């Protein structure tokens, strides 16, 4: 437990655990709404926000939050008006984000170490302000989700059914898009912009395989996410590598392990069923 003695690791751990809690909460809805790539699109906008914020002398996370929320509103606006071109609209925002990030980063002459820490995450650069901002964003996300949980679930099942039932679907979809933007910014500090989307999706995908109900799937996804962040951060500390990669690889290993176990038990079940039939 040597790592716990360091202040920087304590901050990274606090930020990481909050991120691990909140990412699957949004991730489960992102997955059931079949919008798994939205986190990547918003991540690129966050990168543009960080570099743009640096250019304007803002705190990087604030710049990221401003541009990501604007992008999320734009993506949802396009989705509501051109439902058949949702993918194309998302791609345009995706490329806009990366293009702006390249322009801003060359204009600011931002040091490459700073850029890399935002892209891949870092346990050294997490500040107390970052932890406070992450906590504030996460509490906001969790509070809003608490009140909208059933409505979001029904919208995910069928948007038309939800709207006929009296739910203001355009408003709730817009709120959800903004919450997703918040979570991308929350995950940026620890996991990095490039992999924040993975922490929303992979633990949920792992829990999906257990074939449970909605709330149990969500509970398992949160457990897998927390486990991934804990193992990933500790490995990152001892191996001196960026935490984003180790956290996401841990989550992927959990996913693969569950997939293998599931296949094994299904095969075993089928085999024992066959032997009983043969004996009879």
């Amino acid at each position, binding site marked *: 437990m040597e790592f716990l003695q360091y202040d920087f690791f304590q901050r990274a751990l606090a930020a990481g655990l909050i991120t691990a809690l909140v990412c699957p909460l949004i991730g489960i809805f992102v997955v*059931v709404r079949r919008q798994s790539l939205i986190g990547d699109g918003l991540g690129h906008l966050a990168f543009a926000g960080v570099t743009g914020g640096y250019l304007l002398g803002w705190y990087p996370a604030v710049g990221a939050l401003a541009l990501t929320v604007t992008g999320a509103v734009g993506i949802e606006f396009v989705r509501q008006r051109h439902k058949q071109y949702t993918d194309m609209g998302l791609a345009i925002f995706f490329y806009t984000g990366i293009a702006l990030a390249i322009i801003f980063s060359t204009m600011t002459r931002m040091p490459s170490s700073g850029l890399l820490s935002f892209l891949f995450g870092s346990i050294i650069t997490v500040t107390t302000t970052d932890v406070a901002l992450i906590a504030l964003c996460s509490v906001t996300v969790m509070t809003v989700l608490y009140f909208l949980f059933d*409505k979001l679930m029904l919208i995910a*099942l069928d948007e038309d059914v939800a*709207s006929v*039932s009296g739910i203001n679907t355009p408003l709730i979809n817009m709120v959800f898009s903004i919450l997703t933007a918040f979570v991308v910014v929350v995950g940026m500090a620890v996991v990095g912009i490039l992999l924040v989307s993975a922490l929303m999706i992979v633990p949920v995908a792992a829990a999906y395989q257990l*074939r*449970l109900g*909605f*709330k149990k799937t969500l509970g398992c996804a949160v457990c897998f996410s927390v486990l991934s962040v804990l193992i990933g951060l500790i490995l990152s500390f001892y191996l001196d590598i960026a935490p984003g990669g180790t956290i996401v690889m841990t989550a992927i290993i959990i996913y693969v392990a569950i997939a293998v176990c599931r296949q094994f038990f299904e095969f075993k079940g089928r085999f024992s069923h066959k032997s009983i039939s043969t004996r009879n």
Partner: protein
Amino acid sequence: MCEVKLSKVAFAYDRDNVLNDISLTVNQGDFTAVVGPNGAGKSTIIKIIAGILSPTDGTVSVGGGTVMAARARGLISYVPQNYGKNIVGFPATVAEIVKLGIAASPRNKGYTVHTVEHIVNHMLELVGCQELKKRRIGDLSGGQQQRVMVARALAGNPELLLLDEPTSGIDYEASTKIYELLGHLNKSLSVTVIMISHDIDKAISWANKVACINRGLCFYGNSKDFNSTHLGARHLWYYSG
């Protein structure tokens, strides 16, 4: 009272007129089957009543007010035709799906956990799916899924139930059970039911009213009258559909 009134309703997708000059009144407690050949505009008319589509001409009133007002009051519940693709991978149990009908409805506020549980059990009992309560919705057969979806739709205590071909892709026995269920619910709960049907014989057997649509209203009245006077029309679309 949840009366549905369509007055000179027309609808066009771009320049293609799908519905023309449809006027009819569905009274509270009616079980109306909407029948007609493929492409006749049956789904369009249900979507107009549900407020998913707006008519290009004419007016629709539900429960004496606009469709949007009826939706905001939680009067309408809708069971679409193509739930299937969403349901297959949806990670929710049958009980969770039925609960959504209660939690999402503006009519049900402030129920305790115990009451919600009681309503879920009651709805599942009504549709004969109580033993499936803990199963994942995607693991059920098509007929079972549709019955659960009817339970979800009824859990919000609506006055008007709209169903878009609830028996499509379901075998004969399962579809008979759905008709029986809707007929029973219509009588026991006094819910007004408007459903699209491709099976004219079953529609006539279970519904008390039939609306025959073919881009306009061909017939609207008692199902028994339709049975005796429109055999020619039935014969025609059995082959054109």
